[in-house]
């Protein structure tokens, strides 16, 4: 991206001033090197977001931003319904409530390493993944409605995990406002057998070691220490979310035409929050969020059982669960006044700071854990929300490394089987359902996660707590 005409606000925040049809400025959080590596399309897309009706303060791009559809991935925007604010499918994405959950195992690397092959095999065999995979849970329509209303709480009631875990899931495991009547029959039918499945693409289940502690107090509050092993999973709402997105791409498109909304880009299909279509989309999206929360709750329980089948002494417990493709209704202070805003985070993580009432009591002094998924060959991060983050980008931070190379280019550079051997020689065991999928997800196809975490830290969006290093990865 050309940076010469950007207005530098701080070392790691650059602004595109509100010109022309932009209602607000756009702000990009990144250091100059990351910014220069970003696609020019990120600038175009985030400037288009700034043109949407009812947007508040600014449109934001996180340090891992890259070209998406409508919003860039790594895009954040908040809307006020009292100012004609909209809800946009392009601001949430196809994999609604895709997110990351991290589990502590209570074991050091030395105790896991000798049994790693067995652990990886158990995870591979017991957690359904890959294209067309189905879970063991068989639901009828009524059962699925209960999932879409109950989220992770439903899963706990079915015996997947403990009630105490719910406090460590955003929304305490269940998003309010779900409207199962707004979810199409097709979406429900597609979702019937998918609860408890990982999916494919960039979704994974990883065994990680706490490689480096940056913030000892926060790490201690989160119950992690250097050398300890974590189990981390990345997945979302599966076909329910994909179908809700597809259905409302059409429905919101119709609404925008009916209301004569002038959209800078047709991918930014949206409807006013206070319109029948806007309300239905929010209800359907919230239902899909609950589908994702239930899915991760079930997978976490399956993964914990698999891990303990090999290492029964492990005390597997949840660290936290974040969603990074959502729209949430939150209160934020804008120009000295509290306002209720619809905050879209597309490939961005909520990052509430210390003292926020929605942060679990055990972590409240240090801030919300922000789980950032990197790559299978480099690392991931645990960050924590800061006191400043609410004032910077409505308490939002990065979500991953962010791709720097297209999937096609990755396929030209790497082969799945060779990559698997290369990572094995570095002590990282890979179990994949698809060799092509492995090559697409080659670590070299992503930005440097350390750069993204550093930029996020330096921008004050979230602070680094610990770096995690992968030792085994199951890819969908």
């Amino acid at each position, binding site marked *: 991206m050309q940076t010469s005409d950007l207005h530098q606000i701080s070392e790691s925040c650059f602004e595109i001033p509100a010109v022309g049809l932009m209602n607000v400025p756009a702000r990009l959080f990144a250091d100059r090197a990351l910014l220069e590596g970003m*696609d020019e*399309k990120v600038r175009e897309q985030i400037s288009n977001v700034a043109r949407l009706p009812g947007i508040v303060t600014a449109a934001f791009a996180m340090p891992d931003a*890259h*070209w*998406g*559809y409508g919003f860039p*991935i790594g895009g954040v925007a908040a809307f006020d319904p009292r100012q004609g604010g909209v809800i946009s499918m392009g601001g949430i*994405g*196809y*994999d609604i409530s895709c997110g990351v959950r991290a589990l502590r195992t209570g074991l050091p690397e030395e105790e896991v390493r000798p049994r790693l092959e067995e652990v990886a095999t158990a995870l591979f065999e017991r957690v359904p993944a*890959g*294209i*067309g995979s189905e879970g063991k849970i068989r639901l009828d329509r009524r059962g699925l409605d209960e999932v879409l209303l109950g989220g992770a709480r439903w899963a706990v009631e079915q015996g997947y995990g403990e009630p105490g875990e719910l406090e460590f899931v955003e929304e305490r495991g269940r998003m309010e406002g779900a409207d199962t009547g707004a979810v199409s029959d*097709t979406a429900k*039918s*597609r979702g019937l057998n998918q609860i408890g499945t990982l*999916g*494919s*693409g960039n979704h994974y289940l990883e065994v990680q070691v706490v490689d480096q502690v940056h913030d000892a107090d926060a790490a201690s509050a989160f119950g992690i220490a250097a050398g300890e092993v974590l189990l981390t999973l990345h997945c979302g709402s599966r*076909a329910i979310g*994909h*179908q809700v*997105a*597809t259905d409302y*791409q*059409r429905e919101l*498109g119709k609404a925008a035409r009916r209301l004569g909304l002038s959209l800078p880009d*047709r*991918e930014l*299909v949206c409807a006013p929050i206070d319109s029948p279509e806007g309300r239905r989309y929010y209800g359907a999206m919230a239902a899909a969020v609950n589908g994702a929360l239930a899915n991760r709750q079930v997978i976490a329980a399956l993964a914990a059982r698999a891990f303990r089948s090999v290492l029964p002494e492990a005390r597997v417990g949840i660290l936290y669960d974040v969603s990074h493709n959502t729209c949430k209704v939150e209160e934020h202070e804008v120009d000295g006044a509290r306002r209720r805003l619809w905050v879209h985070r597309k490939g961005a993580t909520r990052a509430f700071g210390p003292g926020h009432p929605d942060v679990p009591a055990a972590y409240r002094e240090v801030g919300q854990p922000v789980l950032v998924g990197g790559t299978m060959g480099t690392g991931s991060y645990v960050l924590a929300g800061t006191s400043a983050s609410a004032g910077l980008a409505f308490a939002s931070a990065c979500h991953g490394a962010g*791709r720097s190379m*297209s*999937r*096609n*280019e990755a396929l030209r550079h790497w082969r799945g089987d060779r990559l698997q051997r290369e990572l094995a020689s570095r002590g990282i065991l890979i179990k994949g*359902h*698809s*060799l*092509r*999928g492995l090559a*697409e997800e080659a670590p070299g196809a992503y930005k440097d996660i350390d750069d993204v975490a550093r930029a996020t830290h330096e921008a004050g969006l979230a602070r680094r707590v610990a770096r995690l290093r992968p030792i085994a990865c199951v890819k*969908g």
Partner: protein
Amino acid sequence: MPPGPYEVFEHGADYGVRGFGPTLEAAFENAARAMFSIAVEPLSAVRPLRRIAVEAEAPDEELLLVEWLNALLAAASLEGIVPGDCRARISDGRLAGEASGEPFDPARHRGGTEVKGATLTLLRVAREGEGYLAQCVVDV
């Protein structure tokens, strides 16, 4: 000249799919083949064991392409198959189509990257040379 009747092209974190053909229908069919070639390779190894039928309707030809691809994704996922071939008939802005395939079998099929949805990104349906081009980005 296009490199073949269909191709998968670069797009950031996702893939673009592009179909060419002497008719609009053929271009739509080839765009669908491009999309399913992300999920399963080679398409020729997919046996036509089960058949799905889809219908789509849209205000213009470009949105019709997105509707067609999304209808195929939904129907294939409901039937639990990956399609190896697709047919489309279009008249008066309405599309009636069908596809045949079989469940994904890791022993015989390569690929295995699930497509989540067809998007409006780089969406283009147009006459090109003697025929038609139909393309869009799909989310994976």
